[in-house]
């Protein structure tokens, strides 16, 4: 519980800092903090593989890419006043309204009944193992379980994702290359 609250406070603070920072390098670094917090939270949710991927892909690959682009473009500080009148207060107001609404939704009886709470960690493992191995006893790791799931139930989306990535690579190359004259 303490761990969760700590991580939550850090994550929220970091994200607020990220969207308010003048300097984009700072923003990026605050986002990295966020990613780490979330990775730890994944661990508390027994999602070890996800946590690892979060660190490797997000904090590692994506953020590095961001930093590259930031340094490449060196945009400097953006002007503080907004051309679009009313954009900021409206955005904040609507965002808060969204938050309140979600909170209210969570408070409604129907959703609370449906939601329940976390089962004990052991039952999670047992369930997962039963689904995959047919027996609750044989021990199995999270990574192994996800691997089996990915290549059986989700094999088609998995392959599609690989194509998406390929296309992204091609797209990035096409977009970023200098126009040949």
């Amino acid at each position, binding site marked *: 519980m303490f761990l969760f609250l700590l991580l939550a406070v850090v994550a929220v603070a970091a*994200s607020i800092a*990220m969207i308010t920072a003048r300097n984009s390098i700072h*923003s990026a670094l605050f986002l990295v903090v966020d990613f780490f917090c979330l990775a730890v939270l994944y661990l508390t949710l027994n*999602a070890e593989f*996800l946590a690892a991927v979060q660190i490797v892909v997000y904090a590692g690959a994506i953020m590095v890419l961001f930093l590259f682009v930031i340094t490449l473009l060196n945009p400097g500080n953006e002007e503080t006043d907004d051309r679009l009148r009313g954009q900021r207060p409206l955005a904040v107001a609507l965002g808060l309204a969204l938050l309140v609404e979600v909170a209210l939704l969570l408070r409604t009886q129907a959703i609370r009944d449906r939601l329940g*709470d976390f089962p004990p960690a052991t039952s999670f493992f047992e*369930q997962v193992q039963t689904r995959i191995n047919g027996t609750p006893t044989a021990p199995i790791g999270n990574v192994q*379980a996800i691997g089996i799931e990915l290549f059986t139930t989700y094999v088609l989306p998995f392959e599609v994702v690989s194509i998406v990535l390929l296309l*992204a690579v091609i797209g990035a190359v096409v977009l970023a290359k200098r126009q040949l004259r």
Partner: protein
Amino acid sequence: MAPLSYYFILSAVLFTIGTIGVLIRKNPLIMFMSIELMLNAANLSFASFARARNLLSGQVIAFFVIAVAAAEVVVGLAIIVSIFRSRQSVDVDDVSMLKG
């Protein structure tokens, strides 16, 4: 362990912050980062559900989200780079060719 609704609240807060970030910033890079934050918030919900329902599907979806986010960032950044090349600016408000 914190109750499930705490995770959701945290997810909602992060998502809201991300949303506000997209809306108030003009720097496309920071907007992008805010979008990444929103995706992460969603992922947190997925992972929570996976844990709560004793299913791996939530984690798998989160994995897919990460993969797609990576693709999106790659393309998005490429677009930003090429826009910057042609306009020498990274202010999104300078790009308004969709105006009716």
